């Protein structure tokens, strides 16, 4: 791990965009359920999207890039959680006031100002994740701030917007999305570029997540919070990273990304004064008639082609390492893949593994007019696809001189590195949502919302009083189950420590066994604790009931009955003890081994 000094020396700047789904009943612009549970699929629609001219008559670079890919999008329509609005078949309904209130609460938590009137905008998105090809978004907060480890982090903007749809599958040029998630309200919180180390980035993200959870803004469940990270280093360009699966590895991914950016700038430095230029694309298929390689033969056998291109001046650079196991060639390859090929072959790798021997290489070089100091890139695939892939590859290769390329990148969570996703969007992709009216926000209303804010210290104080265990309190505060802890203890009267233990420890144990206790319904979980509080089941039995994942209160009773999980206590317990008594002696372990789920140890002890 490098220290803060190092990051200062390279001019590291980082800002976060935290996206948190809000805990509302309905979606942002329609009355579909905002719960994320999958329901019944009732049909599918297939659509195409086009890159349309945006503001100022320009097509945004990211939009144009997507448009080049000519993909078909399939949307799965669900019965309860999607409707014509989600399918882009009906104008939006009125803005969900519950979502606005929660969004404003997030603004109040971050001490932001709010506009007097909220204007709904369309943000152009053409990766298909939105059937309308735009996302509805509005700025609801500005000039906020947050303190992280004693340092002030600026929060210049807070947005309320629609969630995109979830990707369910991809094959060739077809992408399948589910519409159950699209339109779920989420709040986006942007920090200023004030963050100066990967660790600070992680801490900031954690703290924002915590404050949103404490204030009941956050929907629970995996994927309900996402962090995008913007990074630059001195002399480079801004890169946006999406798709952090967990905060655990955020700092490591950022460190690796910084390495990549620095290596790219080193390469650019060495390329100063060199003319990097892609040549013309040449069909090299007939050079490969005798090649024994499976991949190439397979492509040619299906009527595909092997196409190649010379990149002047880049000889030796495609093989330069930029991350562990990743080379400049890998970056070029990631661009080519967007056209639908599996990758590229290039002059700085061992081409013999594709069955391309020295003689063929010489011949290829001749055909491509490769001279000393030049590189070349080849792609195998259907002709049009291969041409598109090489066009994209040339584009990236020529940018080697620029060092860091402004891009949106995705986290590769297996290697904790980032990979190219699409060019960084510019400002040409916002325009007013003409189907929605502006929403006035009265100062008084916002002030009222601000009064209900819960701060970390208040919560800590309350929990220490309830649990009397600092370690447990810290665990609970940072846990996603905190809201449930409050709800259950307030509504069921169950022992606070038992509730905390089940939500933290027992849930973790179950999760290790491959069961997902976190997705259990709130009302059902409350019912289980109600049975415990009223003495119907024991502490130990709670986990057993949760494990069976009941769907309703009726199921809870059935599980208790079928699993013989009813608690034995009082007179019944006394009778049971006397049955076990031999010569006046009672074996506690014998009873517990048979009735461990049914008897509370303390009660047994007190009787014995």
């Amino acid at each position, binding site marked *: 791990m490098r220290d803060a000094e190092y990051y200062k020396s390279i001019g590291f700047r980082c800002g976060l965009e935290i996206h948190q789904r809000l805990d509302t009943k309905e979606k942002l612009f329609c009355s579909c359920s905002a719960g994320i549970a999958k329901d019944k699929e009732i049909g*599918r*629609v*297939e*659509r*195409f*999207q*086009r*890159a*349309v*001219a*945006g*503001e*100022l*008559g320009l097509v945004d670079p990211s*939009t144009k890039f997507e*448009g080049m890919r000519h993909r078909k999008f399939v949307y799965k329509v669900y019965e309860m959680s999607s409707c*014509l609005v989600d*399918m*882009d*078949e*009906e*104008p939006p309904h009125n803005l969900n006031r519950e979502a606005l209130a929660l969004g404003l609460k997030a603004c109040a938590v971050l001490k932001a*100002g709010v*506009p*007097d*009137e*909220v*204007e709904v*905008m*369309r*943000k*152009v998105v*053409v990766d298909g994740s*939105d*059937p*309308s*090809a*735009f996302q509805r*978004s*509005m*700025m609801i907060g*500005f*000039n906020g701030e947050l303190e992280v480890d004693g340092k002030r982090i600026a929060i210049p*903007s807070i*947005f309320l917007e629609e969630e995109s749809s979830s990707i369910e599958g991809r094959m060739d040029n077809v992408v399948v999305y589910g519409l159950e998630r699209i339109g779920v309200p989420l709040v986006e919180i942007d920090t200023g570029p004030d963050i100066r180390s990967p660790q600070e980035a992680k801490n900031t993200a954690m703290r924002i997540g915590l404050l949103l959870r404490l204030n009941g803004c956050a929907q629970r469940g995996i994927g309900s919070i996402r962090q995008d990270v913007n990074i630059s280093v001195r002399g480079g360009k801004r890169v946006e990273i999406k798709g952090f699966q967990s905060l655990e590895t955020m700092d490591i991914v950022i460190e690796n990304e910084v390495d990549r950016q620095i290596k790219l700038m080193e390469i650019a430095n060495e390329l100063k004064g060199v003319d990097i230029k892609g040549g013309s694309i040449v069909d090299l298929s007939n050079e490969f008639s005798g090649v024994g390689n499976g991949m190439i033969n397979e492509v040619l056998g299906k009527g595909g082609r092997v196409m190649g291109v010379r990149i002047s001046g880049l000889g030796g650079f495609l093989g330069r390492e930029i991350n562990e196991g990743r080379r400049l060639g890998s970056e070029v390859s990631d661009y080519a893949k967007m056209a639908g090929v599996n990758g590229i072959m290039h002059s700085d790798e061992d081409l013999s593994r594709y069955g391309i021997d020295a003689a063929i290489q010489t011949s290829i070089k001749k055909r491509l007019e490769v001279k000393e100091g030049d590189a070349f890139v080849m792609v195998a695939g259907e002709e049009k696809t291969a041409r598109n892939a090489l066009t994209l590859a040339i584009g990236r290769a020529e940018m080697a001189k620029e060092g860091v390329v402004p891009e949106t990148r995705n986290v590769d969570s297996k290697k904790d590195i980032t990979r190219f996703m699409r060019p960084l969007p510019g*400002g*040409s*992709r*916002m*325009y*007013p949502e*003409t189907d929605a*009216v*502006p*929403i*006035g926000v009265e100062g008084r209303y916002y002030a009222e919302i601000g009064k209900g804010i819960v701060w970390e210290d208040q919560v800590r104080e309350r929990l220490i009083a309830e649990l009397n265990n600092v370690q447990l309190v810290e665990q609970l505060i940072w846990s996603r189950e905190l809201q449930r802890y409050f709800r259950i203890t307030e509504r069921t009267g169950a022992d606070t420590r038992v509730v905390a233990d089940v939500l933290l420890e027992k849930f973790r144990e179950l999760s290790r066994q491959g069961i997902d206790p976190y997705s259990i319904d709130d009302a059902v979980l409350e019912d289980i604790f109600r049975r415990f509080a009223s003495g119907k089941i024991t502490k130990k039995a709670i986990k057993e009931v949760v494990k069976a994942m009941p769907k309703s209160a009726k199921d809870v009773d059935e599980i208790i009955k079928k699993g013989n999980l009813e608690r034995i206590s009082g007179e019944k317990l006394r009778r049971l003890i006397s049955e076990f008594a031999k010569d006046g002696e009672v074996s506690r372990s014998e009873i517990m081994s048979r009735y461990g789920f049914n008897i509370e140890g303390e009660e047994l002890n007190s009787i014995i």
Partner: protein
Amino acid sequence: MYSERISLILSKAQAKEGDRIRLETERGTFEGILMPRPDTGNSNVIVIKRDDGYNVGVEFSDKCIVKKLGSRSGEFSFPKYEARGNRSLPGISMIYTGGTIGSKVDYVTGGVYMLTKPEELLYEVPEIYEMADLRIRNLMSIASEDMTYKEWASIAETVASELNDGSSGIVITHGTDTMHYTAAALSFMLKDLNATVAITGAQRSSDRGSSDAFVNLVRSFQVAAGSDIAEVGICMHAGSSDGKNYFIRGTKARKMHTSRRDAFKPVNSTPICTIDEGGKLEYISEYRHKEHGRGKVKAVTGFEPKVALIKTHPNSDPGIIEYYMGKGYRGIILEGTGLGHVPSSPSIKDLSWLSNVKRAVDAGIVVGVTSQCIYGRVNDKVYRNLRLLKEAGGIHCEDMMPEVAYVKLGFLLGNYKSEEARKMLAVNIAGEITERSVADFDLV
């Protein structure tokens, strides 16, 4: 519009919409482009477009200071596609009339407006230039709810002159609301038509990447350039998916949904053909074929505007007929219930329509009877009340939709004497009446 107070302050600062301004308020400073005030909301709220593209509304107070930082940089305009003629392709004329298909957002002012130049729309669908030798006729730019018989006549005349001038097919872009009225009108007005006339539009405006405009346009050109259909039809999405379009006879199509892409359905009929993703045409039902030597197409554009379309319903007042008689109307289409009923012997005697219908007919007004069921055929025999309506002089219009019967009667009275029109109303001219009622289990 901004309030008078704000307008005054803005003009003092010499700030116009589209200019870059700075607004200093007690709550912070806002910088960006001054946007026009939307029609709704608080007119004392100034809308500014920030550099990140977001609009934000700030209420103006006496302590606010407005400063102009720069002027609007030029007029906003969409890129246009430069037409390249390719004589080896079929000559197709595109007649542009407006509607959602040509609606775009002005990103500077935020308002939706209609493109005045079809080239701006075609910029998004350059593949059309690979399908046809395109001729663009920029006829008008209006919303279809504003269409009148004058525009129908103008479109019909343009179609005729384009075809007689050598075009081999026509694509008309049109707003969707009254597209089926125009389609019916053109079906009646274009005599001896020997080419495909495809009317198309969009349910989603073409400023969004998901617009149905692009697919609808491409497939309209495919059917106009590649079919041998000598009829007017509507070419719109067959389903919510982009995969397939219908080409529906102009006298049998109806907008059946307010917002879905597949709003247009054939009524009492099947589509003439479908056009798929690859541009392949599949013919489903009988149609009028193109024929050599049919001669020139004529636009017969007479239209009698004094025709009313009246819907009857429980408690409806038949006095409305007197009203129209007083206004000099020459034709009435009744949109009755069920098989073509009007209230005939209700408990409240004044609500019976029979005597009013008879008075109208006796005064020389042509009265047609259709059904608000939309699907199915009317009948003048099954019930006594139907027979009474017939005796009163009502003409049951077979399986014609009310809107089509309305357009047809206007056309007939515009070009023929009332007595002839009366005879022709329930006789097929342009596919509006079919003899057989074919079972179709998918469409109703």
